């Protein structure tokens, strides 16, 4: 499956990774369903690019934790641009939270945005993809599905759950030739602030911890998403793919050799 003329559903399209993914898929000639909290306002440039490519983009702003809303939206967009064949779950919202002081509302919000929405979107998009017996589902997750943050436990437990969702969904949907994979995204510019912690030095000198001392970019991430969406990755299913340039390879923080 090439993604040309395929319908790609991207959640949290407004964020930096969402925009980079849109741009990469535009050049492959895809159609889009974009869940955008800004109602498309934050995507004016990407929308122009899509329009110029002669493809279609449907902007929605729905509750991704409501099966009915996601299902109905996919039913209605199916009439307009066809059945969804790629789902990119791209929700990554980090709430600073500690075991000791976190409250229930933050816990519930983090699980809903980061994990429950992935489950509900997979159910709804998966059912649609089953009709055409093909598809690819990609979760843009995090290295914190494995490595603790020391600053945002509600985020890491949600991503730990998504990692298992990828494996379960890969088994269930695999019989319908739908693949499900998860990307463990490592540090990109600014993540040292996002995951600032007094408990772990993980992000100290984070750019130098990548062995070639060069942080990845959202464009690099979009390349991986495209690869996983296409048939080039047809034997990759239920995998957690680490995307961190080797950031987590250091045996211990203090042993890192300064460049």
């Amino acid at each position, binding site marked *: 499956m090439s993604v040309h003329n395929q319908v790609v559903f991207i959640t949290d399209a407004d964020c930096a990774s969402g925009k980079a993914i849109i741009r990469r898929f535009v050049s492959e000639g895809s159609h889009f369903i974009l869940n955008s909290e800004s109602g498309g306002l934050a995507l004016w440039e990407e929308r122009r690019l899509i329009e110029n490519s002669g493809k279609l983009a449907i902007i929605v702003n729905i509750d991704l934790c409501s099966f009915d809303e996601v299902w109905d939206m996919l039913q209605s967009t199916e009439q307009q641009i066809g059945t969804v064949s790629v789902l990119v779950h791209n929700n990554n919202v980090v709430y600073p939270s500690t075991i000791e002081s976190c409250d229930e509302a933050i816990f519930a919000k983090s699980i809903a945005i980061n994990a429950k929405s992935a489950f509900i979107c997979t159910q709804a998009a998966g059912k649609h993809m089953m009709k055409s017996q093909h598809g690819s589902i990609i979760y843009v997750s995090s290295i*914190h599905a494995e490595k603790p943050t020391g600053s945002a436990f509600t985020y890491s437990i949600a991503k730990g759950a998504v990692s298992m969702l990828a494996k379960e969904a890969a088994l269930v949907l695999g019989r319908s030739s739908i693949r499900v994979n998860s990307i463990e995204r490592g540090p990109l510019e600014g993540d040292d602030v996002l995951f600032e912690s007094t408990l772990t030095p993980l992000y100290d000198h984070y750019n130098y911890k990548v062995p070639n001392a060069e942080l990845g970019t959202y464009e690099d991430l979009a390349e991986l998403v495209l690869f996983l969406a296409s048939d080039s990755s047809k034997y990759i299913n239920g995998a957690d793919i680490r995307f961190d340039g080797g950031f987590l390879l250091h045996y211990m923080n203090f042993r890192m050799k300064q460049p």
Partner: protein
Amino acid sequence: MSIAGKVAIITGAGTGIGKGVAIELANRGVHVAVHYNQSDAGALHTKEQIDELGGSSFLVQADVSKKTDIERMVNSVAEKYGGIDILVNNAALQLNFDFFDYDETAFDRMFNINLKGYWQCIQAVVPYMKAKQSGRIINMSSVHSKRPTDFDAVYAMTKGGIRMLGRESAIELAHYGITVNTIEPGEIQVGKQSSRESKPILTEEEIQKYKRFSRTEREKFPVGRVGRPLDVAQLVCFLASDESEFMTGSAIRLDGGSMLI
């Protein structure tokens, strides 16, 4: 091993693994709070077995999806025994729903008990453990924190979450002298659930039977037999003891080698 005289809360101790853990801890001289929600008959049976061994225990009911219930439970245990040394997070739900049969309510129910409940029990015991600058937290997870189930996707998701809850708690609580470890059991043979007929630990006769290493058992478990609650309980005893103080943030698979084949 030095655990006698310590105080432990075991959630979900009216059935299965929790029951076996409660009995074995009490057998080694730990004061045990036997938590249950609806398995009152099972919890009573756990207490009766502990009484028979001459151990110390009391029953405490709570819905672990509710913070107020958890706080009431933890405070009552601390008040009775003068503190809390050990928490065994074990109460969990498994609905075995098909992937597409899960609705939003069922999803929330699973996460509220299996994940939020674990976290809030930890949150509630931390002040008591901090006061002593010592504590042992043991989270019961499953081999399904890494391997999918193919029968309950949301159950596996909650176990994937527990894997990270263990690691996050371990680094956050280490400087209070609190360790947090996770046990990932494979198939464990338990008796009938939630009834007076619960058999938390296999009878001698059954143990002998498994020792014969039937072909079926050997096909499933390289060690030749299914797991039993006592296997889990023995590991809990080690993780709850002073001897395990350098061990934190670990997840130990306990499956008789079944995930290797």
